[in-house]
């Protein structure tokens, strides 16, 4: 009955480096369950990340793992996928890695609709460097570089992904652990570029500064501010004010990039 995570973990790497209560571990477990559910083959699956606490995830996973440079995961992964379209390619990383320095590669991966799955662990902060604000830090929040309150508006990661052309966009939270694997599994099965944003927590660099007494409070907040899309349909704007939707937010069928490129190869060989 207890799920066997060890099957997918590299032996001897636990305990992981994440702080007590860091949601990244919850996401990693969800990812493992999703991979198991989709029956992905270890040898045929690459897990690619950038730099950050979240981006340390691949090191624990017993797959072909690539810990790239800050913000570049999507671009490295595009090279892997183009070279070996038959491989499953999963990207993981933090909100800073993916939407700050990595923003350009992110929107272009969305545009190309290249068949990869990107899991963004959004803890609203640059955790690894000690808590500077990220493009996903709420306006007004405190960070080590916004002691007077953050003047920056935050990205709506899902909206950005849709605007850039992603064909599958979902959102979950570290609190709703049971749903993480379902969303990721559906994303993996989707043919095209799929984005799963997991609202996450960083008690160490975000929680304390923003008056959360404990990670429990942070978890409870994730419960309180979110509403499943299905439920939202039955709610009026008033009730939805300040709420964040979870579940599958967008899904569309479009030819994926490597399939399209396969046609280029056919045409080229024809042209010979």
């Amino acid at each position, binding site marked *: 009955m207890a799920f066997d995570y060890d099957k997918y973990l590299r032996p001897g790497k636990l305990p992981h480096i994440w702080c007590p209560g860091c949601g990244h571990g919850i996401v990693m477990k969800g990812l493992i369950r999703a991979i198991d559910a989709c029956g992905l083959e270890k*040898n045929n699956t*690459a897990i690619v990340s950038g730099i950050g606490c979240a981006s340390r995830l691949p090191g624990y996973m017993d797959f*072909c793992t*690539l810990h790239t440079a800050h913000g570049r995961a999507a671009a490295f992964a*595009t*090279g892997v996928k183009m070279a*070996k379209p038959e491989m499953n390619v999963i990207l993981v990383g933090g909100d800073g890695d993916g939407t700050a320095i990595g923003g350009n590669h992110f929107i272009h991966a969305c545009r190309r609709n290249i068949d990869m799955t990107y899991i963004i662990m959004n803890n609203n902060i640059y955790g690894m460097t000690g808590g500077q604000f990220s493009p996903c830090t709420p306006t007004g929040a405190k960070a080590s570089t916004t002691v007077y309150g953050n003047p920056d508006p935050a990205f709506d990661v899902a909206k950005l992904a849709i605007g850039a052309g992603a064909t599958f966009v979902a959102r979950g939270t570290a609190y709703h652990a049971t749903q993480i694997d379902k969303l990721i599994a559906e994303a993996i099965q989707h043919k095209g570029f799929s984005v799963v944003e997991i609202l996450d927590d960083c008690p160490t660099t975000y929680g304390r500064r923003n008056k959360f007494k404990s990670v429990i409070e942070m978890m409870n907040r994730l419960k309180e501010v979110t509403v499943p899309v299905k439920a939202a349909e039955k709610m009026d704007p008033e009730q939805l004010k300040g709420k964040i939707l979870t579940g599958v937010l967008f899904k569309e069928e479009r030819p994926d990039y490597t399939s399209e*490129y396969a046609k280029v*190869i056919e045409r080229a060989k024809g042209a010979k």
Partner: protein
Amino acid sequence: MAKKVAFMQGNEAAAHGALYAGCSFFGGYPITPSTEVAEVLSVELPKVGGKFIQMEDEIGAMASIIGASLAGSKALTSTSGPGLSLKQELIGYACIAEVPCVIINVMRGGPSTGMPTGPSQSDVMCAKWGTHGDHPAITLVPASVQELFEETVRAFNLAEKYRTPVMVMPDEIVAHMRERIVFPDPGELEVVNRTQPTVSPEQYKPYDTQFGDVPPLAAFGSGYRFHVTGLNKMADGFPTTKAAVVQAEEERQVRKVEANVDDIVKFEEYMVDDADVVVVAFGSTSRSARFAVNEARKQGIKAGLFRLITFWPFPEKQLLAISKKVKAFVTPEMNLGMCTGVLKGCVEGNAPVHGIFRVDGEPINPTQILDKIKEVK
């Protein structure tokens, strides 16, 4: 059967050299004056089942070739000055993660946007020192269309042999001029592939030095699972901060190249033996130099040409030896003294080094060099 000959541009020849070497992936971003390399490969690669992708920027392009190389492809990108500067961070990544790949950088006027269509040789220093931290560097500087083809093949060979990025740096003149080229038959030129692991997947370590300074590199998706990072790493590829390991790994990454200079360094000596004045030049400038040296000899001046084909590693040994025999060096270059400075650095003051510097978008003509030879002889 007669060899295939063609009259083509340097950049086209580079693209065909890449194909000859077995390049199966190109990731790039267009920039003058290197675009023809990408344009030719966008046509030719898919014909042989290879992949061509135009990335969102040069950083993405560099990232894509590292990813593709780890997935087993021989991967190439091409760019020019501004793009090379943008690629620097990830060039360092390829160095520390030891990922074979080739970068063709066509030299135009810099810094910044500079003179996009003007020839230059001012990227040779950033070819070695551009990225932060200690790292190896191999940079090839061909001088003809034929040589650009051949050095591109050699670049892939060196990249695969030493698991490190290699740069090919024609100046805009060599990249854009057209000459007759004779295509080598398949098998005529050596084509090297990275060594594959002989151990089982369970025993495989991506940086296993028991196989020497250049450990075998398996491909993602080939049954070998491993971890790659840009952090200092151990034999198994995982990050470490253990002082002894880090020191050893950093030293090995550089030693791979430093200890094999004789295998990597390539140059041409032309009438150097009895020369009083030796012109040290590379790329299109070396063609002007040869012209000038011939003229000088006609006029009874003992001039010679030492033509760099490998700029990095720099042929220090050879030039130090020569410096003990000659009256003077002349270093014509389309920059403000990069080769001149490096040469001074290795001749221990044995002979004066007289530079001829042009950064105005015009080639250095034979007369300028001849005059200097006469002046210093």
